[in-house]
């Protein structure tokens, strides 16, 4: 998602970025579909069963990409928000606001799939282990960002306030993660530690393909939402009127 338009300044204005994003979105949808089908087929059809966890482990093909995306999108959101705060680029603040709902959705999906994975493995829907708990807190951070931006009417102030919250949140994520981990180390360690991958390579490819699919999906959906925000905020300008044929 951190693609940087090549002519940075030419596309920094919403007016120039709107049509460009419009052209790119179908491509990202196509990529998301291709990676999705590939990842799922590897994960669900080709990959062998796991020794102890049987077939239930296949949930990681959904759980891990979702967790990755929820974490990654928060970092990207904080990046765009910080840029918007520092340089007053309205476009990057809009991008941050566009990313937040998708990030929140991935955080919720990560919790949902984590719970459904935990039930057969550990016998309980919700287990207070370090990663699930910090995922829950990450969801709260997302909801806080969205609620703050919704509560402030003036778009510029909403952007800047949201940016500060996102930056403070980013600084706190490692602290929260390690304090939760310190508090409870029930979780079986990170399931994808590239150094000693305890999984067959096919599983690894399956997961990476699913992650790419989620990433393409996130780019496409946030570009669409960014375009919607642009229309909403720039509705008094002439280029929006021309865009709508007036």
């Amino acid at each position, binding site marked *: 998602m951190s693609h940087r338009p090549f002519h940075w300044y030419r596309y920094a204005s919403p007016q120039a970025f709107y049509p460009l994003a419009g052209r790119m979105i179908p491509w990202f949808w196509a990529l998301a579909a291709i990676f999705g089908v590939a990842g799922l087929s590897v994960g669900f059809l080709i990959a062998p069963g796991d020794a102890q966890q049987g077939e239930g482990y296949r949930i990681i093909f959904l759980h891990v990409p979702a967790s990755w995306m929820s974490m990654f999108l928060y970092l990207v959101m904080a990046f765009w928000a910080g840029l918007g*705060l520092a340089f007053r680029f309205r476009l990057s603040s809009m991008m941050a606001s566009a990313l937040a709902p998708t990030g929140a959705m991935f955080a919720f999906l990560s919790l949902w799939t984590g719970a459904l994975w935990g039930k057969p493995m550990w016998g309980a829907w919700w287990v207070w282990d370090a990663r699930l708990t910090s995922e829950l*807190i990450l969801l*709260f*951070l997302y*909801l*806080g960002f969205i*609620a*703050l931006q919704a*509560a*402030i009417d003036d778009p510029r*102030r909403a952007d*800047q*306030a949201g940016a*500060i*919250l996102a*930056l*403070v*949140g980013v600084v*706190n994520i490692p*602290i*929260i993660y390690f*304090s*939760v981990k*310190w*508090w409870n180390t029930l979780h079986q360690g990170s399931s994808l530690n590239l150094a000693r991958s305890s999984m067959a390579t096919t599983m690894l490819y399956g997961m990476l393909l699913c992650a790419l699919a989620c990433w393409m999906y996130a780019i496409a959906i946030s570009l669409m939402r960014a375009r919607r925000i642009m229309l909403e905020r720039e509705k008094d300008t002439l280029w929006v009127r021309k865009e709508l044929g007036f």
Partner: protein
Amino acid sequence: MILAVIARDLRLALRRRADLAAVLFFFVIVVSLFPLGVGPEPERLREIAPGVLWVAALLATLLSLPRLFADDFRDGTLEQLALAPLPLGLTVFAKVLAHWLVCGVPLAVLSPLLGLQFGLSGEALVVLSGALFIGTPALSGIGAIGAALTLGVRGGGVLVSLLILPLYTPVLIFGAGAVDAAVNGIGVEAHLSLLAALTLAGVFFAPWPAAAALRIALE
């Protein structure tokens, strides 16, 4: 100059003792409700005491946060503070310190009394009060960011809790962990030192984003 701001806030707080008392009564009431809900068995109460006392302290601080900037914002004195020849971050630092003296310290002083309700041993009570004493500045510092962000926003009071409680979790974990360790008789130094680290970070780093948020609110 910082002392002037602290003295100002303390004098204002003393003039409005009712707000002060309300926060402390809230803390007492919330803590006393738990035994009614959970049941009188001393063993179980002793087990949940650290968590209950710390969560109640958290909520009490949260309750008094909007007061940090809202009154000054409404009557225009916040503008004058922003225009004082003092970095806004230091002004916020002074206000956080004043808020801690007014709200955090009474909580720490009062907590051993309430610990008795939960049958905590003498040593645990000392650790409880000490942990609260160390932890509450971080609550005030991080809370200042939430108060500044939601200044003049409708529904700000509720919003502060949504923004700030996730950021409070490390302080809660180490604070309650310290008291829990004391109850079980194991070493508390690790917990308290981490808590102190959080407090230092909270008190010295939090005022700067809070100042930035104030500047935005004053626009």
